Structures are given as C-alpha cells and as structure tokens.
C-alpha cells in the first residue's frame, strides 16, 4: 500500500488538500496513543530486560557485556532442572485440561439442546469470574491436612490419620488444570458448534465407528479450537505464580518463583532478567510451534480464543 492514504473520507465541504491534512492529523492522533502504549510498556521494557540479561556486574556501578547470567543458568543444575520441570508439568497440565474439557465441550456443543446448552455453558464459566486467589483458597481448605478431604477420608475409613494432600505434584496439577479450564472450554465449544452434524451422521451411515469419526472428522474440524485452547492454557500455566506457590509450597519449584526470587528477594536483576527471557523464549517457541503444527495465523487464533 503506497504511502499513507487519507484515512477517513473527506467531508463534502472540505477541499481535497484540507481533507488530506485532517485525515493525516486524525491518523496521527490515533496512532500516538497506540505507539506510546506499545513502545513504553511493551517494546522498550523488553529491550531493557534483554540488555539487563546480557550484562554482568564487575564492580560498584560497573557493568560489562557478558553471557554470565545464561552461563549460570546452565551451570547450576537447580535452575535448569526447575525450568525443565516447569515446562514438562505445563505440557502435562495442558494435555490433561484438553482431555477433561473435550467431553464437556462436546456435551455443551452437541448433546445439550437450545437453552440447556447455553445454560450449561454459562454454569461452566461462572467459577472463572471469581478471582484465582479465592479458588486457590478453596483448594487449600479442601486439601490441607486439617482440611475437608483428609477428614472425609478418615471418616470413610480409607486412611487412619489425616494425610497432607497439599504440596504434591498431583495437587499442583489439579490446581493448574482447574485454573485453566475456562480457556480450553471456550475455544473448544466455539469450534465444535460450527461442525455440521450431517457430516457425523454421514460418516456413521457409511459405517464409521466412534473413534474413526473422532479421528477423521471431529478432530480435524476442531483443530483451530484445540490449538487456540492449548496455546493459551500452556502459556498461562507456564507463567502462573499463585497456584504453584500456594498449592505446591516449597516443593513446587516453579520457574516463575525463581524469577521472583532473583528479582525481588535477592535484587539480582541481571539474573532475573535472564530467567525472564528464557521463560519468554520457551513460551514463544511453544506458541509458534503450535501455530506451525496446525498451520494457522496468530491473529486468527487469538481472536477465536
């Protein structure tokens, strides 16, 4: 598109030159806040973070460019273990969320009819209007040693004494899956709703069984929704801080905690910035890989999410 053409159609009274000028001015007025937002709050801060991560403190107020922060990450097993662990648990949590959410999305989109379907959809969304802090509090009351579930287990005679259900990896997964459920159900339902039932009936009439219909018709059709849901859930899980620290306690070893420790507790911003960049790189890599795999555009996916 050559040059900046008039953004708005000129009003009838205006001369062409004045019209072009006013269009230019409007464009500038609209462009300025957007550029200020993206520049001052997104682009420049990330450049600053990159600069921080590639330098090393050599003395008071003395810094030199170096890869020391990234070397520390790879040299210190604790750091990259936590990183890999966070990534793997996030993948596990995303897949688990998909497995649990898919039948629910199917029920909402295909089995329930009319009012029932929309009512069910709303009921599934309501818990996510409530703050994550509140939901995590609920899980803590349910699972801690003196909590509801352990005492129920004792009453049922399944355990002799109350067991601590918090601070396990499984607890962490439950919390993470719970928190991400909404972001999986919404894109799945909207992609399943657009699937024509006639296709499924036709496949069935032609002798396909359930798994075959799922593999050859439903999943290809729902692929955009599945990708969108998985990308968003993975990203949110990876960047979660509240659920791992509260439900996992000291055992959670979540990478965002390392970032917090370096940045806020130890005031080692260079190291924290490097960790931040590594997390950002992982999250971006997964988003890009997900889009490549399903052959979709970033914009479309985010809009459907």
């Amino acid at each position: 598109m050559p040059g900046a053409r008039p953004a708005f159609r000129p009003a009838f009274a205006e001369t062409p030159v004045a019209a072009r000028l006013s269009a230019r001015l409007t464009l500038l007025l609209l462009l300025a806040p957007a550029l200020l937002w993206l520049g001052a709050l997104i682009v420049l801060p990330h450049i600053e973070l990159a600069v921080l991560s590639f330098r090393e403190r050599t003395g008071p107020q003395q810094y030199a460019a170096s890869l020391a922060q990234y070397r520390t990450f790879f040299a210190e097993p604790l750091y990259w273990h936590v990183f890999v662990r966070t990534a793997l648990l996030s993948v596990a949590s995303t897949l688990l969320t998909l497995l649990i959410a898919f039948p629910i999305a199917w029920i909402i989109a295909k089995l329930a009819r009319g009012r029932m379907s929309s009512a069910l959809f709303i009921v599934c969304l309501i818990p996510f209007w409530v703050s994550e802090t509140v939901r995590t509090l609920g899980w803590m009351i349910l699972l801690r040693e003196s909590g509801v579930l352990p005492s129920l287990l004792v009453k049922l005679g399944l355990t002799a004494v109350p067991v601590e259900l918090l601070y396990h990896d499984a607890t962490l997964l439950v919390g993470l899956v719970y928190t991400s459920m909404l972001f999986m159900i919404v894109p799945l339902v909207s992609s399943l709703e657009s699937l024509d039932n006639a296709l499924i009936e036709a496949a069935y009439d032609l002798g396909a069984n359930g798994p075959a219909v799922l593999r050859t018709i439903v999943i290809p059709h729902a692929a955009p929704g599945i990708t969108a849901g998985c990308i968003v859930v993975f990203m949110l899980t990876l960047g979660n801080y509240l659920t791992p620290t509260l439900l996992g306690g000291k055992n959670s070893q979540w990478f965002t905690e390392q970032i917090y420790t370096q940045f806020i507790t130890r005031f080692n911003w260079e190291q924290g910035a490097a960790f931040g960049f590594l997390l950002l790189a992982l999250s971006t890599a997964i988003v890009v890989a997900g889009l490549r795999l399903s052959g979709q555009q970033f914009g479309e996916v985010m809009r459907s999410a």
Partner: protein
Amino acid sequence: MIPSLPRPAWLRAATLAYLAVFLVFLFIPLAVVAVFAFNDAPYPAPPWRGFTLDWFIGNASGGRTGLFQDGELLGSIGTSCVVACWVTALSVLLGTSNAFLIERARFRGKQTLSILMLAPLVIPGVILGISILAFASRIAEFADDEFGLELDFLRPGLPLVVLGQFSYIATIATLTISARLRRFDRSLEEAALNLGASRAAVLRTILLPYLRPALLGSAAIAFLMSFEDFNTTLMLVGSDAPLTVMMYGRMREGASPVLNAVSLFLMIASGLLALTLIRGGRSRR
C-alpha cells in the same frame, strides 16, 4: 455421539455421570470457601462447630476481627478499586482509539502494528511485570542522575501497578471494541455526513451509541481483570497492597476465616457482574 444417532444406555449414563463429576469439581472449591466463612471456629477447617457471623462483624474484643472491622483488608479493597478504575478508564479509552485505528485508518505497517497489539496477551504476566519494573527504574535513575529529579511514581507502587495491568488489559479492550466496530454499517455514517452532520456529531450521535455495549462490556471486563490480577501486580507493588496481594500474603501466613468472608463478597460481586453482562448480551440480540 450426537443425539440423532443411536446411543447405548450405558453411554448416556456415563455422559451424565461425567458431567455431574465435572460440575462438582468446578464448584466444590467455591462452596467450601463460602461455607467456612460461617463456621464458629478459629480456622477454616472441619468439623462444623455452628453458625456465626463473627468473621463478618466481629470486633477484636472476642479475639475475632471480622471483615468489616479489619481496616487492613478494607483498605486493600479500596486500593484495588482505585487501581481498577484507572486501568478501566485507560484501557477503554485506548481500546476505542485503537479500534478506529485498526478498522478505519490505512497506513503502512498496520499489519505489524495489529499483531504487536496482540503480543501482551502471550507474554506471561510475571515478565510484563519485571520488564516494566526494570524499564521504569532505568528512567527514574536516568532522571535522577541527569536532572536531579526524583520521579517517585516510577518506583514500585500503585502507578506502576496501574501501568502494568493496563499494558495487557488494553489489548482485551481493543479486541472487544474493534470487533463491534467491524460490524458497523458504514452507510449510516455516510447518510449522516450527507445530511450535513459534522464528524464530531456523527461520532457522538451514531458511532458512540452503537459502540456502547462494547464499551460497557470491555469496561466491566477490564475492571474485573484488574481487580483479580496477581502476577503482574506482585512484581510492581509497593507498600499499598491491593486485595489479591494482601490475601496472598495472609494465605501464606496461615488461614483465617476472615479470608473466606472477603472471598464470599468477591464471589457475590463477580457473580452479579457476570449475570448483568450475560443479561445485557442477551437483550442485545
């Protein structure tokens, strides 16, 4: 399978059972939070010791400080509201301006810009927080060294919390408002211009009323997201803690049913907000 195809009875039963288990999974954490706000015991844990309103109205005399007497908690709710109002106002204003930029203006690099606008949604909140913290203190230091200026608002505190939350909530407002603007019938606007209306008049009498549902909707979502934000806020917070950070701090120290009481209020408030939005969405269609 779908209703028009034969489904064996066991499959129907299994579907219903799965749905029931799922709904229990969804609602049980909220239910226990609500129930234990009324338990007459110093910890939010079983057994049930009877009904009490101490955790709402108790004053410190009985050893129990209820929500309405807990200045610290009430103060943090106030702080959250102030932050959320700023974030909402900024996000809706920028979202509207961005919507016109994306849907109406034509300029080079528009594609890149509209993709860049989505970026804040795929950057983890913790990283948005630390990058803004680092950048702000770089500027503050620069101003201090070069001009001897003390720019306190660039140090961790509420102004930075507002900016941090705004950085990604603005994207959500932009998406909501531009989606509605895209469906606008341009002929209405042209008719008004033909009839001699000025641009300002068209904006005021046609475009803004048309956008109203999206503006209100995105304002409600922005307020809620700001109120509930934790990741970004935690990195940028100073001495005044908003509610989520305050609750997090107390949850780490130990449990008190007063947290259940405040949670119950949050549930009721966000439930009402959700219902209003859903109602509003229905009546428009």
